[in-house]
């Protein structure tokens, strides 16, 4: 009887073994791709770039240019130049030193795509240039487009032009905004005028540049710039707990429109609850209903580091794949945003 039981157990053990082995198989394809990528990269490096070192994450890097000392810590805000290409293939994106300004990004906070670049940047110091070989699992995976084949290995050469701190960026953006206000003549105090000595008074020479209503006001506590463009209903402001209905046109300092909510299809949101970006909510808080205003928001009150994506022109694909948020496709890292907003009556 006992021996019978043993015989009975044998098939069960076999089945369990089979199940275990099949479960192991399901994990295999992922690592298979990694193994294949690793082999491809190593073969390529042996032929083309024998100085490359392997990083534990799976990326390979070559120190192209190094500096004797410097600092690096996760969470740094960096300005970089780069050129990215498919390994052994065509270039997919670049920011070239001398031709364009460097781009800013924040390293180490899941705000860089592809992820392999985020890992790579953590190895770099200010002034250094590295070349990274990023396996597909840390690049675009099985995503494919006309430019990026499926399971591509990516080569990115990066120069860290500068490492910034937040205070510098805020100061810098304040300067940019002040300059913008001046160039756009947003302050009603700035009018093209000449002093007529015979009349002994200022004469406006170009009133078309005269921006209506109030001067631009810097709201110190909210750290945003606010300019009233048309008067609203006196005293009818949004109070906490209410919902606010707004229409707006969102632009960057360079004038590019990135988003728009027409008057007919406004956005209604819970005011003062953090549902929308801090700077815009703060701007709405000083508005009266039916008022139109220009709200200029430095990046730390808007989308901050947003997401830095290579290549820059196919961000929407990654939004659709639910890899990056929609706002990241519209607003670049550390971008000052301007909302020309109308606070409407609630529907």
């Amino acid at each position, binding site marked *: 009887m006992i021996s019978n039981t043993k015989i009975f157990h044998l098939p069960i053990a076999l089945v369990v073994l089979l199940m275990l082995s099949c479960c192991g198989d399901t994990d295999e394809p992922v690592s298979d791709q990694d193994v294949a990528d690793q082999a491809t990269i190593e073969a390529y490096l042996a032929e083309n770039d024998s100085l490359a070192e392997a990083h534990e994450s799976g990326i390979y890097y070559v120190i192209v240019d190094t500096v004797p000392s410097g600092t690096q810590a996760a969470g740094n805000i960096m300005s970089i130049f780069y050129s990215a290409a498919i390994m052994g293939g065509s270039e997919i994106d670049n920011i070239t030193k001398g031709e364009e300004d460097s781009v800013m990004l924040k390293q180490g*906070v*899941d*705000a*860089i*795509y592809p*992820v392999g670049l*985020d890992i790579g940047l953590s190895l770099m110091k200010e002034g250094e240039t590295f070349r990274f070989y990023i396996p597909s699992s840390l690049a675009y995976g099985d995503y494919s487009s006309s430019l990026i084949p499926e399971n591509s290995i990516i080569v990115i050469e990066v120069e860290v032009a500068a490492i910034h701190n937040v205070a510098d960026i805020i100061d810098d953006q304040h300067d940019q905004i002040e300059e913008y206000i001046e160039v756009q003549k947003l302050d009603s105090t700035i009018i093209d005028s000449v002093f007529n000595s015979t009349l002994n008074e200022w004469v406006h020479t170009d009133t078309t540049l005269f921006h209506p209503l109030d001067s631009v006001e810097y709201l110190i506590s909210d750290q945003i710039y606010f300019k009233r463009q048309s008067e609203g209903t006196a005293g009818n402001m949004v109070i906490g707990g209410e919902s606010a209905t707004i229409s*707006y046109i*969102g632009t960057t300092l360079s004038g590019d429109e*990135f*988003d728009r909510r027409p008057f007919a*299809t406004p*956005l209604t949101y819970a005011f003062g609850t*953090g*549902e*929308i*970006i*801090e700077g*815009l909510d703060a701007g709405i808080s000083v508005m009266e209903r039916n008022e139109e205003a220009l709200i200029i928001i430095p990046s730390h009150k*808007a*989308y*901050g580091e*947003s*997401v830095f994506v290579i290549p820059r022109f196919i961000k929407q694909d990654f939004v659709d794949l*639910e*890899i*990056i*948020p*929609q*706002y*990241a496709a*519209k*607003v670049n890292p550390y971008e000052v945003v301007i*909302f020309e907003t109308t606070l409407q009556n609630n529907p």
Partner: protein
Amino acid sequence: MKLRLILYITLLFSAVAQAQEYPVDPDDIYRSPVRAVLNQFSITVTTGYNSTKYSHNLDGFWFLQSTTDQYITPNTGEPLGTSFPAYQNWFNNPSLADTVELTDIYDVPYAPLSSPVNNPALSQGLDTLDGNVVGFEGRGWGVPINLGVRYNYQKFRVGLGLGLEFHTIKSLSPTRDDLGIRNYEPNFKKAVFFSYYLNLGYRFYDFWDWSFAGELEIGKQKMGKNWNSSLLNQSIFFNLGVSIEKNLSEYFRIVIKPSYDFKNYGISVPETGLSIKHKNPTFRVNFGVSITIPELRRSPMKSDHVQLKHLYTDPQTGRVEEVRGQPIWKKQNPKVGENHRKLWRYKFKNRKKLNPY
């Protein structure tokens, strides 16, 4: 007048059934006219198992699925705006859900997300699918109680019936499993259906004590309070089946009836002018008993142990009457030993014996 005519007609047909020969003029034998009429009718009571297959598709609508809910909204050919009416419970009671706002809370000007790249929160949202690719199907089952009365004329039968079904419904699964659609959960689990129907049949085959009759039922099913009757547009149902009857006696039979209901219903979606067609055919296996009311009564005499149908003379009036010697569920004119209690009791055990005792 009409009733009398029916009585005469039925009496005429009932005369066909008499075969026993008695040393008395048949005209002198009393026969109850009431029993003669009732004898033309059979009463059938059945129960069993009903399996209903529900299916529908959402052609003409958008199908929307959030992490918790499923909705539909009319497909006007235009892309959906940011806000539109959404309906739920389109299976039984389409009603306006809260207006769905198709907002991507990771768009401008909503607040930024921390650790945005590959953040699982990005996949939270409302999936929108064109309804012409979305369908659901599922099963419900029920235990019915059916009561039918029919009039028999030769091999034909015409009757009326009532049915009650205690129904349980399960969730409906999507017809396509590659779109990430979850099961549709009706907002109720149990229902009681009531139906009434006309029954037409023909006994097409007799084999020893078995009879086979093809039957068609045409009727209406009331699906109860779970379905919004003001939005419901129900078809007449047709049921086709074969009634397999084991005649235990002239008056008593056991019935097994496999059958199939063809039916569907449309349910309108309020304020849209659109409706959704739901098919709900049912396969039924019902069993029960059927009795025919005997044209003769049992012998009123307690000590009368005569087994066959026989004549009985009323001691007071001298009226001669034919009476039965058997209860209705036993063969009325048994051969020797046919209704023997022991033989009945061991009928199964002795089924292959040539001479059981």
